[in-house]
């Protein structure tokens, strides 16, 4: 656990709402994506994860590391999803079927790896991050320059620097070499 993560834990224990916001920025979309795999409904997924955050806040004194929070996040979301499916088995479109039971083991692996990659990208300075994300979406340099109201050379510059930083941090993310 690095200093950054230590600060979040400490802040949480002290009741600093800002720490919860940081956890929201980092984990919320990934957890929703995870919940969605179970409940197959975007709003329900959001509801479930929202409740888990509130639960985390009330239990904030119990977490001593970012790993225990992460564990609790995924466990709690899964439990709520299973409860939801059980309670709504009559009118929900999809219930706890074979597909989920056999594949759910890897749901967490998939979500967590993507989440950690995204976090690495989110650590980039604003301008670089924006340019990089738009590049991922296959936008051309000219299109990106237009969208962000900056010059083409700025885009090229930011892209190059983002690539350099990410190559250091995510060495074996093969596709980086194709961007």
């Amino acid at each position, binding site marked *: 656990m690095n200093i950054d993560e230590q600060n979040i834990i400490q802040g949480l224990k002290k009741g600093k*709402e800002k720490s*919860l*916001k940081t956890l*929201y920025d980092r984990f*919320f*979309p*990934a957890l*929703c*994506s995870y919940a*969605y795999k179970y409940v197959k409904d*975007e*709003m329900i*997924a*959001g509801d479930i*994860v*929202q409740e888990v*955050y*509130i639960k985390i*806040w009330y239990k904030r004194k119990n977490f001593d590391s970012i*790993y225990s929070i*992460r*564990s609790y996040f*995924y*466990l709690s979301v*899964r439990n709520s999803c299973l409860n939801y499916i059980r309670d709504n088995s009559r009118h929900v479109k999809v219930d706890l079927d074979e597909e989920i039971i056999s*594949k759910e*083991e*890897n749901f*967490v*692996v*998939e979500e*967590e*790896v*993507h989440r*950690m*990659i*995204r976090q690495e990208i989110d650590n980039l300075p*604003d*301008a670089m991050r924006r340019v990089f*994300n738009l590049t*991922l*979406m296959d936008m051309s340099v000219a299109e990106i320059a237009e969208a*962000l*109201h*900056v010059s083409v050379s700025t885009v090229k510059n930011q892209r190059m620097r983002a690539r350099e930083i990410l190559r250091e*941090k*995510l*060495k*074996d*993310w*093969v*596709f980086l070499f*194709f*961007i």
Partner: protein
Amino acid sequence: MNNSQLNIADLIFSYIRGNISEEEKELLDKWRKSSPENENLFKNLCSKESFTTKLETYKVFLAQSRYQNIQKHIKRQKVRTIYRYSSIAAALVLPLMVFYFFFSSPDELSERIAEVEQLAPGKPSAILHTAEGGEITLEAKDFEIKDKTGAKIVNKGNSLVYNKDSVSDDAAKERYNKVEVPRGGEYQLVLSDGTRVWLNSESSIKYPVVFKGDKRIVKVAGEAYFDVAHNKERPFIVVAGHTKVQVLGTEFNVRAYRDEDFIATTLVEGSVRAWYKEGTAETLKPSQQYMYDIKENKHIVKNVDIELYTSWRMGLFVFQKQKLEDILNTISRWYDVEFFFENNDVRNIEFTGRLKRYESARNLLKILEEMEDVKFRIKGKVVFVK
């Protein structure tokens, strides 16, 4: 199950990072080989497509803006400490209201309410303070006057134009004019060097009738947008509060309202240097903003979406995830009305949108009501919010 899955995720991430150890690699390989699903997942996680697809999914969920709700639940815990402040606020408000009702007859009251009910938007109306100390109202009435230096000052439509071609007296001292725009107003100027200035509500600018000397200096309070005439020999400097912005020939926005505790300079085009008192000067690039925090006594430079900070000039309100409180502050200045919160929870609701500024406040408020869970009740120049 949970922890072993998280361990695998960490192994894969270490691999992607490029700092996986020998033992870890063995564990990872074992997992990959144990089923074709695992191997497929691993290959997927190393690809661009699955990540970009995931980013799209993330966007969808982030758009739900759930943090507000989470915050609401959390703040309920802290309710006890807020009581003290609420009771003070209530005590202050009451006497004013009582006064209003006691000293106006019911007929007068309904008349007054009816006439202001429309909440018409600000008309361009400003006041020009001349160098001699005179005051001229700049209604939408055209006029032409000559300053003592011979400079011609033309008021047309809602803009004031200075022309130095006819300057006869090249006297040593600079003579200053000041334009003040009240709440509910807006005005434009063209200074003697050709620099164009747009003034927002509750703002003022003090400037020389004709620029002399090696620097062009103007003083601003409130909010102003500049399109500075290019002149390499004479840098243009804007003084706002204790911050100064120096430009060569560019477009930028300065915001320094007395009731806000920050001063912000946003650069649209060109290049400027901004600094506070004797602090470090920062050079801004287009789309960058220099923000000085008066309370904390420090400044930051950040990249921004310029539309959010300069759209007022084009007659638009553009806001992105802005708190209702702040939005109503701006509306209050432009329409010269007061907002009173009957429900404190709604202060922090965030809005994102682009609205036309010249529509009457009533329409604007109706649109806001459509966007989020908030209700406005208009009573004369006061609007109750809940």
